[in-house]
């Protein structure tokens, strides 16, 4: 049971990370560098699937539940929302 629980925790899911661009530290000149730095602070291996320019300030990435929770707690992060499946009508 413990192993299954550990696997669950380590299983990565896709999240959409919304950033508060107005809170970007002065040490960054490029928002993409800030996004990357924020991501790498919770996961060295995580990579951005997309970085969005218009619809949100933020990016999509794969994280474990623990990493997502940790990222959400960081300054400058508005929300970390799990990816959702939509269906054709």
């Amino acid at each position: 049971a413990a192993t299954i629980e550990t696997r669950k925790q380590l299983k990565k899911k896709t999240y959409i990370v919304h950033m508060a661009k107005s809170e970007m530290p002065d040490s960054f000149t490029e928002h993409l560098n800030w996004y990357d730095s924020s991501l790498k602070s919770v996961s060295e291996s995580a990579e951005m699937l997309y970085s969005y320019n218009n619809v949100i300030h933020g990016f999509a990435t794969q994280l474990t539940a623990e990493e997502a929770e940790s990222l959400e707690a960081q300054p400058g992060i508005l929300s970390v929302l799990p990816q959702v499946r939509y269906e054709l009508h």
Partner: protein
Amino acid sequence: TTRTPEFLGLGKSDGLIPASNSMSDVIVGVLDTGVWPESKSFNDMGLGPVPISWKGECEVGKNFNASICNRKLIGARFFSKGYEATLGPIDESSESRSPRDDDGHGTHTSTTAAGSVVEAASLFGYAYGSARGMAPGARVAIYKVCWLGGCFSADILEAMDKAIDDGVNILSMSLGGGISDYFRDSVAIGAFTAMERGILVSCSAGNAGPSSYSLSNLAPWITTVGAGTLDRDFPAYVSLGNGKNFSGVSLYSGKRLPDSLLSFVYAGNASNATNGNLCMTGTLIPEKVAGKIVLCDRGLNARVQKGAVVKEAGGAGMVLANTAANGEELVADAHLLPATTVGQKSGELIKNYLFSDPNPTATIVFGGTKVGVQPSPVVAAFSSRGPNSITAEILKPDLIAPGVNILAGWSGKVGPSGLSVDNRRVDFNIISGTSMSCPHVSGLAALLKAAHFDWSPAAIRSSLMTTAYTTYKTGEKIQDVATGKPSTPFDHGAGHVDPVSALNPGLVYDITADDYLDFLCALNYTSAQISNLSKKKFTCDSSKKYSITDLNYPSFAVPLETAQSVAGGGGGGGTSVVKYTRTLTNVDSPATYKVTVSSETESVKISVVPESLSFSEVNEKKSYTVTFTASSAPSGTTSFGRIVWSDGKHMVGSPIAFSWT
């Protein structure tokens, strides 16, 4: 599509349609399953150079070269990173890692919105005619976000992101997810930015009807489209051994049944499975159905799949009977064997015969295409219904448009039934859903955009809504096929789209991006939640009184609490008083409009102040307030009314929906 242009009054009023040069400046972006670029509906004959503002491109991928695009299909991209991150790499043996449409849905929706004119279009001769999109002169850009395993929000957001960069004017999205707050819903989030950039986003309402509270895409900055029928049918009659005949529908084409009657069996009596009546895969006993016509009940698996199951078991034909969930709604399908779908009532009578006659027999006779069917439109049973489960004060759907048995372009990769065993290939297919009604409105919005390039998305939606009709020429209300009774604004919103009237609405209810921010404040959204949608650091003004009912929406949903006073006014002693403020913008000649109010209930008194609005110039704005004074009613009670402003030339109508909770 064939027939819908005539049904919408477009065929006989070409003089009202914007000149082709302004139309060709409008670009409709479609987020869907991709595109079959070889479809004749993407013929670019007569179109000038691509607008210089266009920044999109045709991405190269499997079975898709950039050179496939032309002056009609000006953009095609695909987005799969979110999909592949969740479900693993795309299986390229079954779907193309490219904008190519391996499904058909995306080709159908995009050609419905803005397909070029194609003469002599049909599906096996059914629905024969000249096919065209609603805005045949507009350009099309395709954003493939839906794959065999679904459409994922990371991809949808990126596609909307790119579409905005590319320079689309209209976004058509025939998809939806579960119901969630606007700040969590990727479609709502992407649509907010699109709206800010002047892009109208049209979305399907969903196919979860006729249940209440079943709508998708509820954000007020989205145009939400339900589905109605056309005046066209594809009759296929069931003749029973007892001499009785029943009318159904079918798009079957192929070898007909023999003239003589065949043995007829109920699937539930030809199966050992508990749900044998549903004709699920592998549940029919071949010895009991071979050479016979089989009656299957609708539900659980796809309608065409049931026909394939009967055929596989050796059946000669199928009668598909609706159940209570579908009532009398007749959706036609391109079955693989002689088959027809009948309504619930006919289904029950046919089953009575099957169960009472020791040797039941039947045959199916196909009647081709019939037009002029009345009444039409009727609200489709599958079309999702209100009330709005997120914001009860916003009436959704916004309106309905044709979405039943719609012929439009199709993918060459898949047969018309969509089944893997279907080896037929067609240029056009006939399918149903709010997926089909949404691109009708997207294309019509493109028409309005061409005619009024400076209009905001809200103004375009307003013109479509306030000119929509809710009654037939006889004066009777548009029916709901699910009940056989008059439909309500929770079913049809503002009514059925009437594009010719929408081109000149007289007045519009405009809404700016700032108005929507005020609306979010009225919802008590936090700064972070608002930023999720708007990307701005925005704080609601604590000294300002925000009200949801002040959003300048072209319709009125009035939730009322039972036996107590509610916010928005005084009242008491079992009386609720609610005020809604609206602002009208004049978009035509100077005129004086007078209001008329109608209501089917005496439990709510409606007063409008002022009762007359005079406009002396274009773009002049005038406000009015509606006060609803409601008596108590049992929880669950609903009632409806209408507010119409008219100058004698224009009718600017708004539905009212009351609901007591």
